[in-house]
């Protein structure tokens, strides 16, 4: 809809849509929004790389190839390699039961799956200390059998699994609900077994959602700090993940090294965002092609 507005003073006539703001309002709003984002997002991001490289490339490379840093990278990769597949299997199982069947208490189950998101990271770590720590429920039994979970790698894995439980499930549930059950029912009626139906019908339909959830889950698994910090014991070279190593270096006033290691995590975040955007873009195109946008 277009209205012609005549300004009596200047005598100028221009056209402005009645459902659009004047140009000066638009420009000021964009400017204020970008200023806010620059101050709170872009500058902190850039400063990580600036601080990491401030003392030169040699210092940077030395920091990320130091033995403690390498063992932290290895531990972080190991923890993510266990936590992400576990939550992947859980996410698929949870989404299969919730999206493909009708049963009582479904909404309660969805809320319980989301629960770890609303628990403070510190509390997420503490509850595992209460179960597996020396003072905990299983502590005396574990000590008797010479098993160590808290202040050791299994505790770090458990705490990471806890904080990343919802990621894949909450991507898959709405996706599989929207897809319905007709395709699977057709497969079963035509004689396919349950696993055949899952591998050949369901999985191809949900693979992008699965990947999307796994990428977000992985980013959190590699970056988790609070929960892991409580159960880790901070033993250099053995129970230090990358974020914990950043903290140790920083507290030793070794800022260049701390930011160098932090820049690896910042790169991980940027790659995560790029992949996420790519999948969203692909999904949008796919929807437009299929005409159900």
């Amino acid at each position, binding site marked *: 809809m277009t209205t012609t507005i005549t300004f009596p003073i200047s005598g100028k006539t221009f056209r402005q849509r009645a459902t659009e703001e004047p140009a000066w309002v638009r420009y000021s709003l964009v400017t204020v*929004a*970008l200023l806010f984002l620059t101050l709170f997002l872009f500058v902190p*991001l850039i400063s*990580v790389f600036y601080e990491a490289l401030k003392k030169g490339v040699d210092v940077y490379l030395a920091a990320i190839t130091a033995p403690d840093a390498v063992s932290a990278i290895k531990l972080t990769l190991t923890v993510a390699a266990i936590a992400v597949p576990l939550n992947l299997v859980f996410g698929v199982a949870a989404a299969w039961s919730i999206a493909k069947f*009708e049963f*009582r208490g479904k909404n309660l189950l969805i809320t319980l799956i989301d629960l770890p998101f*609303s628990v403070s990271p510190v509390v997420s770590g503490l509850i595992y200390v*209460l179960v597996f720590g020396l003072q905990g429920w299983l502590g005396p039994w574990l000590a008797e059998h010479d098993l160590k979970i808290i202040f050791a790698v299994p505790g770090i894995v458990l705490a990471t699994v806890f904080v990343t439980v919802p990621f894949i499930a909450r991507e898959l549930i709405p996706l599989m609900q929207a897809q319905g059950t007709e395709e699977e029912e057709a497969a079963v009626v035509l004689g396919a077994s349950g696993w055949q139906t899952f591998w050949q019908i369901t999985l191809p339909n949900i693979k992008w959602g699965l990947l999307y959830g796994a990428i977000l889950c992985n980013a959190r698994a590699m970056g988790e*700090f609070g929960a892991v910090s409580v159960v880790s014991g901070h033993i250099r070279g053995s129970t230090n993940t990358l974020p914990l190593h950043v903290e140790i270096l920083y507290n030793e006033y070794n800022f260049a090294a701390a930011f160098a290691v*932090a820049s690896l995590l910042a790169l991980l975040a940027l790659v995560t965002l790029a992949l996420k955007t790519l999948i969203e873009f692909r999904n949008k195109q796919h929807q437009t092609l299929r005409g159900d946008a």
Partner: protein
Amino acid sequence: MSTFKQHSILPGFNLALGFTLLYLSLIVLIPLSAAFIRTAELTWSEFWSIVTTPRVLASYRLTFGVSFAAALVNAVFGLLVAWVLVRYHFPGKKIVDALVDLPFALPTAVAGIALTALYSGNGWIGQHLKPFGIKVAFTPLGIFVALTFIGLPFVVRTVQPVLEDIEAELEEAAATLGANRWQTFTHIIFPVLFPALMTGFALAFARAIGEYGSVIFIAGNMPMISEITPLLIVTKLEQYDYAGATALSVVMLVISFILLLIINLLQWWNRRSTQA
């Protein structure tokens, strides 16, 4: 059994639900219940005296006050950012849109040290605030900056889809009836966005209350002044005060559950008002 589940010809229900419940119990429910069961070993007066000492009360005031302020700022600027991203065109918009999720993807420890470096006395931003006598790093103001960063995506990402779905006809009708843009915004658009805005605010607030990693670097962590409740839990744990740490965790958990309930109600309200 017949009333529990509707009939379906698809297989795998028992296996999938059984695994889901087992996994959820082992990973989430049993460990969470440990906090409540261990706290139940205390008497009510013991529990109450632990969770109401002056130092603990100061940490609640700080945690909730600063989280509220940060969520409020995020509500205002999140709405603005969502508006600008949906309604206007500017160069680099797609990159800006993708980067809004940065606080979700960036590990909190990295955010913590980056913000501390920026806002300390000789940092890029801190040095310009120093002449005005404004100290950000190692004060409650620093906590506010960290929590604003952490909560930034929530409001944007809850308001954005609702704003995208608002039909142009509504605004055109308002314009034909003689409303100016501001009136259209306050009377037509804002009421539709409001439930989403509240949901985003509550999500940012809930996240801020539990936040630990980004805050501890910038806070200074002075008891009574800049010590947040999650840090107090860690401090008690490091002093082997398990009862104290657990009691405080239960307080945090109960508050988180109440917030979760409120958020669920807000989302239900949001769905209803966007469908109506």
